């Protein structure tokens, strides 16, 4: 399946979530990672956050999903500070998939996906027909209907990641935050997950993913955010954003950039270590 095969349906402006950060500062303990970050993410698109290890991209995602409380500033969802939104309410609008989640032994795919309905349920309002419909739809979208009764730990890597994404889909949120959804997968399974992500955007979801794979980000993201030492070096559509200079400043490597003749995405070739750029001079 090529990218053109996806029907791109921009979500209409009223329903599309608006995620922004306002003077956001995040720290682990006393170590500041991100200071005064201003960011606005495009609605109804796939945004990829890339950068070298330790650049703060996972920290940023933690801040956006309220795993990490900001030291200063705020993450705004439709103009409201997510720290002030009740967590169940937030979980109906924003789904999160952490890096390499672990399912308990013998938990089946259907059981896992049902957890996605938690924000919509309560002690008084238990399992409903509505919940069942959402779970079935999530299984359908991820192509796991026939595997629903299998234990999650018996699946292939790609299927397992699809099952977790199905759980997040069942949450019925407008936004999905994914932390390195493809990093532990082989090429075939990566493509499996990327294509699922594209199809979700086609259905109107906003997706934000932290990702190591710059080539995959160029190929499958609409919007790229390049981070280095807690700062944003560049952002925009991959085709306009990724330059050989940016790649050198991000990763300390030289490369030749060409345009993928099939998809139009930028493609890195002949990647080699830059000898004359010292660490730190990149900023």
């Amino acid at each position, binding site marked *: 399946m090529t990218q053109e095969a996806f029907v791109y349906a921009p979500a209409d402006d009223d329903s599309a979530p608006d995620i922004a950060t306002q003077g956001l500062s995040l720290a682990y303990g006393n170590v500041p990672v991100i200071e005064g970050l201003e960011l606005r993410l495009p609605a109804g698109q796939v945004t990829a956050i890339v950068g070298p290890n330790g650049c703060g991209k996972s920290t940023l995602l933690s801040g956006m999903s309220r795993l990490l409380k900001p030291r200063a500033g705020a993450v705004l969802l439709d103009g409201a500070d997510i720290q002030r939104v009740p967590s169940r309410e937030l*979980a109906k609008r924003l789904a999160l998939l952490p890096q390499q989640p672990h399912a*308990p032994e013998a*938990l089946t795919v259907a059981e896992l996906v049902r957890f996605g309905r*938690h924000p919509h349920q309560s002690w008084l309002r238990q399992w409903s027909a509505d919940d069942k419909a959402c779970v079935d739809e999530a299984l359908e979208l991820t192509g796991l209907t026939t595997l629903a009764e299998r234990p999650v730990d018996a699946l292939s890597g790609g299927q397992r990641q699809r099952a977790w994404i199905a759980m997040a889909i069942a949450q019925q949120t407008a936004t999905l935050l994914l932390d390195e959804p493809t990093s532990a997968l082989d090429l075939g399974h990566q493509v499996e997950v990327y294509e699922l992500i594209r199809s979700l955007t086609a259905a109107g979801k906003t997706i934000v993913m932290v990702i190591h794979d710059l080539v995959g980000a160029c190929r499958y993201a609409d919007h790229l955010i390049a981070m280095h030492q807690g700062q944003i070096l560049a952002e925009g559509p991959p085709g306009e954003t990724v330059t050989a200079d940016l790649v050198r400043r991000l990763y300390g490597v030289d490369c030749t950039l060409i345009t993928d003749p099939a998809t139009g995405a930028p493609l890195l070739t002949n990647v080699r270590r830059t000898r004359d750029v010292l660490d730190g001079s990149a900023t």
Partner: protein
Amino acid sequence: MASFMNRHADSSVMVRLRACLWSGKSPSPVATWGLLMILLAVIALLSLLFGAGAVGPDRAWLALSDFDAAAMHDSEAHFVIGELRLPRLGIGLVVGIALGIAGALLQAVTRNPLAEPGLLGVSAGSAFAVTLAILWGADAATLRISVAQLGALGGCLCVLAAARLQGIGNDPVRLILAGAILSGLLHSLSSLILLFDQYTADEIRFWVVGSLAGRDATDLMPLAPSLALAALLTVILARPLAALALGEHVAIGLGHHPRIVRFLVIVVVALLVGGATAIAGPVAFVGLVVPFAARALAGPDIRRTLWFCLPLGPIVVVSADIVSRLVVQPSELPLGVITALIGAPVLIAVVRRRRLPML
């Protein structure tokens, strides 16, 4: 050929049976649960029929079949059943449910299949607090319960604080070691007190090994409020606790508050273990054996595990109590001794499994 076919069929039955037992995909969990309830009813009946004293099963059966009339023609049997065995059965049911549920909750919250209130020092904390309270002159049942519950909470928090130290939290066996050290320390301190204080020693000697004997139904009443609170909290906490099994971040993503959930679960464990300890003394291993069996039957979801703990807890405690009355007739073994005899092999079996299942 036929025998080959038969063998083949047999082995596939075995495979399916094992799959049922170990994968948690029992064909009908409801039916299994119903069977356990029937088993519990039978065991409850047996506990009324058998005892260490002079009233044998035949006399007990006659007295039970027409209990009011028995008051006239066999007043001894009437008394033994109504005043001794029935309260004892009631206490066995309560203690079994409390310890089974507490074990399942503690294991879910520490994500450690070995986390048993007795092994982790929760019961020891409870027993130590009661020893102190008796030393200082307390003996009212209500006071003893709240003291035991506070002691249990203290034990829980101590061992979980140890578990937060680097490395221990990730290793189920090291957490148990931390608990064993705490237990040992508290037991020594309790023994030290008993050594110096004869009255406390007399008061506590039988209690400290765990027993259902010598308690009557009125002992249960002061427990009711805290058990009701524990039950309510368990019902509310079951869902978020199940989500915690997917990991802290996933649970937060689903809108739960892991820290609040964990704290409340610890409170429930303290209420249950403290209550059970106050009434029956520290009964070891029930909190290990019962959730272990419940998980094997119910699968990984804590909500189903808790349902299965309801019949399994009393089944273990009441049958252990029956055995404790019968093995050394006409005297009795303390219940804690029997549960330890059942529990120790299960503990070894869990530890010996090459990969400890992460909860």
